[in-house]
């Protein structure tokens, strides 16, 4: 008899329980903490489903970076003056909202319950395609991401850049071009500086390792990039490095470098391999790693900029 099914059931109950608490929490901070815990538990679920790649992404991005983003957003919202309590919405509106919510939930549930058996899957096709084009990559996930659905992967990075542009464009006209406000005010404390000095070098090494090992084992550009981004945030929180001005040339080049390099190689594939976003068979692995290196750079630049927020108009900068 194995104990694993019981662990799985316990894990599932925990995830559902935490999800419920997160939604029901009246306090903003408690909800964010619940969300982070939910993400970490979800990472365990992915590990139990034999998807360590997804688990890494969930832990790094879904829980870690999003958690920081939500905490910062919550702090900024809390700093705003409380708006006057609005009048209660009328009962008909509440009912309408409830009915619509039930409809959406019902449609989603029906879609899952009415799946044909066996469910339609692109997995065999993707595996076959990844085998041919992602030759030399031991990790089929990376092969699928970078070769079978490379266009989607590039667009995902574009979405990140669009999000950064969106955040920046919320800043005041006067502040345009200046740096975002410091992540930690007014001054970093000694433990924070110590943590950054000790953790950042090791964390950067691990981030690069996760990217590099992604070719053959669980890992990859997004996971490695998220870790590097976290290290950059830690350094900026300890004020060991200043936040960059948003009109800095190097920052903008770093932001677009991932999708740009991806697109250049994709277009080159038309000539060298006979199709858009195809790679010559013998060079597939070095090309994929080369593109991924720039994607890591883009992600490392984009995620902290999302957290840092719009440029601030303080006169001292």
């Amino acid at each position, binding site marked *: 008899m194995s104990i694993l099914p019981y662990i799985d059931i316990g894990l599932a109950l925990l995830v559902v329980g935490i999800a419920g608490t997160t939604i029901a929490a009246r306090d903003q901070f408690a909800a964010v903490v619940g969300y982070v815990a939910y993400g970490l538990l979800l990472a365990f679920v992915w590990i139990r489903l034999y998807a360590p790649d997804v688990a890494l992404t969930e832990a790094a991005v879904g829980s870690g970076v999003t958690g920081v983003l939500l905490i910062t957003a919550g702090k900024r919202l809390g700093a705003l003056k409380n708006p006057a309590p609005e009048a209660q919405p009328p009962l008909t509106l509440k009912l309408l909202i409830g009915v619509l919510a039930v409809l959406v939930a019902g449609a989603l549930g029906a879609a899952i319950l009415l799946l044909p058996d066996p469910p339609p899957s692109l997995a065999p096709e993707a595996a076959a395609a990844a085998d041919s084009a992602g030759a030399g990559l031991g990790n089929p996930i990376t092969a699928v991401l970078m070769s079978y659905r490379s266009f989607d992967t590039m667009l995902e990075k574009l979405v990140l850049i669009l999000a950064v542009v969106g955040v920046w464009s919320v800043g005041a006209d006067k502040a345009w071009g200046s740096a975002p406000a410091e992540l930690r005010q007014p001054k970093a*404390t000694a*433990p*924070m500086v*110590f*943590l950054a000095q*000790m*953790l950042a070098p*090791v964390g950067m090494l691990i981030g690069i390792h996760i990217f590099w090992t992604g070719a053959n084992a669980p890992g990859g550009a997004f996971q490695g990039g998220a870790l590097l981004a976290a290290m950059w945030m830690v350094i900026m929180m300890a004020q060991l490095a200043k936040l960059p001005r948003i009109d800095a040339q190097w920052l903008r080049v770093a932001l677009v470098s991932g999708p740009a390099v991806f697109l250049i190689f994709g277009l080159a594939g038309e000539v060298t391999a006979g199709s858009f976003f195809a790679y010559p068979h013998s060079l597939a692995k070095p090309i994929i790693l080369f593109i991924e290196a720039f994607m890591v750079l883009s992600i490392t630049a984009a995620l902290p900029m999302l957290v840092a927020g719009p440029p601030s108009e303080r006169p001292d900068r």
Partner: protein
Amino acid sequence: MITLLNVFSITAISAGAFFFFAGTVGLLRFPDSLSRLHALTKADTLGLGLVALGLLPRADSALSALKLIVIWALVLLSAASTAQLIGRALRQSRR
């Protein structure tokens, strides 16, 4: 020899699990944030250290054993630092 190593693993991991349990009880039962912090960091660092120690003889290779130690060291570093940060924030909010 194998039995001896197994006994060592089981003892260390059980002791680690006990410290996790004690830390959790402290986290739930202690009256104020500073004591809860004390329970959490002390018990968790020791608990994880014992679990890692118990897993060392079961590692496939020297490299994975090293990874276990690195994981423990990283948790040690971040737990100790964040405990300091939280403690400082508590003291400032009390003033």
